[in-house]
């Protein structure tokens, strides 16, 4: 998680106070995770309104089930699992009509090939000030099938370790690595040609 979260110990103390009646502290407990939970929900739900509903439900469920959180995992990992379950449950209900497979689809076989380039000019993070670049990235992530999208969100965006990602998704470390590899190559394949075109030399000059 990128936002500044209290130490695990502080968090355990806050959780203990909430459980013993100081429920108002729940607001402070979850503040560092609002963005993460929303992002994960959005990456699965694909639209803002559903994502917000899922995020709210996840925080409510975490509150109601706080007593069941016994410090077995990090609070953030537990919260992410709840969010994923909430989003998956909702997608499953929505998808009965759409026929999109949302359960753990088997790993697709064959090698994923990257986009071949002869040179690469770094796209600076300032490029994200441009709406079209942000959209390009969002669409590429959202365009991945769910099993790849989840590992990208947890590992790349939320910066969980491979082990934490495996715990949150209830899959093996080896599966995380395989999916992550394929997802990274897929993103490169989609985005490298698009970003290359969107990154003409002159446009960066005026911003540097």
């Amino acid at each position, binding site marked *: 998680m990128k936002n500044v979260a209290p130490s695990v110990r502080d968090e355990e103390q806050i959780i203990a106070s909430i459980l013993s009646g100081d429920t108002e502290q729940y607001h402070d407990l979850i503040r560092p995770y609002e963005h993460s939970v929303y992002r994960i929900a959005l990456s699965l739900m694909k639209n803002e309104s559903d994502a917000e509903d899922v995020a709210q439900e996840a925080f409510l469920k975490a509150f109601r089930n706080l007593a069941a959180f016994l410090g077995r995992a990090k609070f953030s990992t537990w919260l992410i699992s709840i969010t994923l379950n909430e989003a998956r449950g909702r997608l499953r209900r929505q998808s009965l009509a759409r026929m999109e497979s949302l359960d753990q689809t088997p790993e697709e076989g064959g090698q994923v090939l990257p986009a071949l380039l002869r040179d690469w000019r770094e796209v600076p993070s300032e490029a994200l000030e441009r709406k079209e670049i942000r959209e390009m990235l969002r669409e590429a992530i959202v365009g991945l099938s769910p099993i790849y999208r989840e590992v990208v969100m947890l590992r790349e965006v939320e910066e969980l370790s491979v082990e934490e990602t495996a715990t949150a998704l209830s899959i093996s470390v080896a599966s995380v690595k395989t999916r992550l*590899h394929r997802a990274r190559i897929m993103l490169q394949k989609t985005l490298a040609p698009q970003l290359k075109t969107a990154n003409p030399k002159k446009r960066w000059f005026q911003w540097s």
Partner: protein
Amino acid sequence: MVIECKHVWDHISGYLDDSLSPETQELIQRHLEHCEICSAILDSTRNILVLTADDRVFELPVGFSDRLHARLAREIAGASGDPFKVSAD
């Protein structure tokens, strides 16, 4: 030992995570020194992942936090008695 481009691509993710064996790492490193295509693939992948991780890609909607905390406040206020009672072990 020489490694072909398509075998290098299998290790891009491991290379970026610095999780390859020293031998494989060395093999890839030597390949990258003379292969501009694999170098460009690696650089672009790394660059794309940095951009992907940026907070600006998935921004919180305006008012998200206020709405969330308002809803939580209602839930917390409504949770009378012992809200954390676990029904069964």
